[in-house]
């Protein structure tokens, strides 16, 4: 049976989205798979949504971009909107539930439910509203809430948000081992770990926690992982 998984990881610049993509591709390669990673990139230095596309397969990979993802991880509302087109009904969408909420259907609301009437996050925070409070627009795929930001903030440090997300992704993907991920991390960030050994352990624990959260959510949703 051919193994092929397509991933979209998206968030705001600064959340570590591209690192997740790079490490995922590298780890897959170390597991003996073909892999390809490409970032989205446009003219703006900052302030755009950051999106990483990763493909992993046991056969040669074609185009760097694709129509639909198998697994998505979305860390901000704007990123969710920008990447909605990559969802199909078979996509599993991990979203950071500490920042995003599923929509509440209010029959009395006029207009399109919780979609076009919302301000973009940046503007929302500028006018004094909590950016995290906006509900998610409708999704085509299966939503899997992972409170990544909260877990990172409460159990580790906010900086390892992306590692929790990476763990959740490999928890769903199969065929990519935690060991391969740790090796890839070592290759990329080894110099930082050398300066502070505790970082290595913390990153490993954050990844494990992510794997755990993803598998918990999956069984709650009644799906075989």
């Amino acid at each position: 049976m051919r193994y092929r998984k397509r991933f979209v990881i998206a968030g705001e610049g600064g959340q570590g989205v591209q690192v997740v993509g790079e490490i995922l591709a590298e780890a897959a390669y170390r597991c003996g798979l073909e892999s390809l990673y490409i970032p989205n990139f446009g003219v703006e230095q900052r302030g755009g949504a950051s999106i990483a596309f990763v493909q992993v397969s046991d056969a040669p990979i074609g185009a760097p971009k694709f129509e639909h993802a198998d697994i998505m991880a979305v860390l901000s509302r704007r990123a969710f909107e920008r990447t909605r087109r990559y969802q199909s009904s078979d996509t599993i969408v991990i979203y950071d539930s500490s920042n995003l909420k599923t929509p509440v259907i209010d029959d009395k609301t006029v207009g399109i439910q919780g979609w076009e009437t919302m301000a973009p996050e940046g503007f929302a925070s500028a006018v004094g509203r909590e950016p995290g409070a906006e509900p998610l627009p409708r999704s085509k795929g299966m939503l899997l809430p992972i409170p990544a930001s909260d877990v990172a903030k409460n159990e580790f440090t906010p900086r390892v948000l992306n590692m929790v997300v990476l763990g959740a992704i490999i928890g769903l993907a199969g065929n990519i081992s935690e060991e391969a991920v740790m090796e890839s991390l070592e290759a990329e960030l080894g110099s930082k770990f050398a300066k502070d050994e505790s970082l290595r352990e913390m990153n490993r624990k954050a990844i494990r926690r992510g794997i755990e959260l993803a598998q918990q959510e999956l069984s709650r949703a009644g799906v075989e992982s």
Partner: protein
Amino acid sequence: MTGNEVVAWAALAAGARAMFGYPITPQNEIMHYWTRLAPEHGLKFLQTEDELSAGFATIGAVLTGSLAFCATAGPGNVLMQEPISMAEMMRIPAVWVIQQRGGPSTATVIYSQQETRLTCFGGNGEGLRIVYSTSSHQDMFDYVIKAFWAAWEFRFPTFVLGDGYQAKMREPVTLYDPEEAGVALPRVEPILKPDGVPSVDREPVHLRNTFNIEEELMDVLVGHIRDYAEMIPRVVESEEYLCEDAEVLVVAHGVVWRSAKEAVLMLRDQGVAAGGFRSVTLRPFPEEALRAVAERVKLIVVAESAYGQLESMVRDRLYGAQVPVRTLLKPGVGITAEEIVDSVVQFSKEV
């Protein structure tokens, strides 16, 4: 590593000593990697004031017998046609890496195959150039090295035509030492400054690109055109995938070739006898090879991220062939295997 990083390593492996460039996305990282490698390997670099000077500086370096190269994209490629025209006229073996982005004008910094015609035929000449179109990091490595060899062997400006996707994506690649791998390396010699004192030990070298009367120019060009024709069999390259019994042929180049191959497999799964043809060299265009396959198939579908640039070449070279040619044209946008499959299925019904 990213495609841009691969280019820097390939140039180094080929023995390149100098790079000139000007910032333009998506090729900037080639400069970044080159400047990082420079002190350790004794490499030269200058970021010039614009693409015109980057191209001319590259030509200057090449004239003295140095392996030098330049890289650009998009609007930079447009400006680069000025120095490239001079290289074409004067048979200067300079190498350019082009990472295509959307066009025309500034458009996007991201991706396209819209500089195909420009890279092959830009400038005010006859397109006497060698253009390799890569579709993977391994290609990038292999063909950057080959480009240096081909440029110096045949003395035509030579190009490696990539794109923003290849520049920025990461995939596995095997780097190697060309000498150890038995890959031909360029034979470099000074063009303008051979050894010896001019008019004492040897005649001075006088180079010009200006002529007085039409016939003078024609004489020179005829010589270049003849050399180009003689070179074709030694340089032209194409790739065929499952073409032996194919009834439908997908034609593509560059990164779209990856999707084309995948599409061919998907079509075969559906019972369609599909095959794929890839132009590896766009200049010279693999006319003979394509005609041979075209004679056997019932339908050709050209897929490209441009509005007919590859298509024109295909139609031009297949003139007289009876097979219908249809197209999947998406200027500045990537093409997936699924889209090619859908197109082929659709066109097969119509034709």
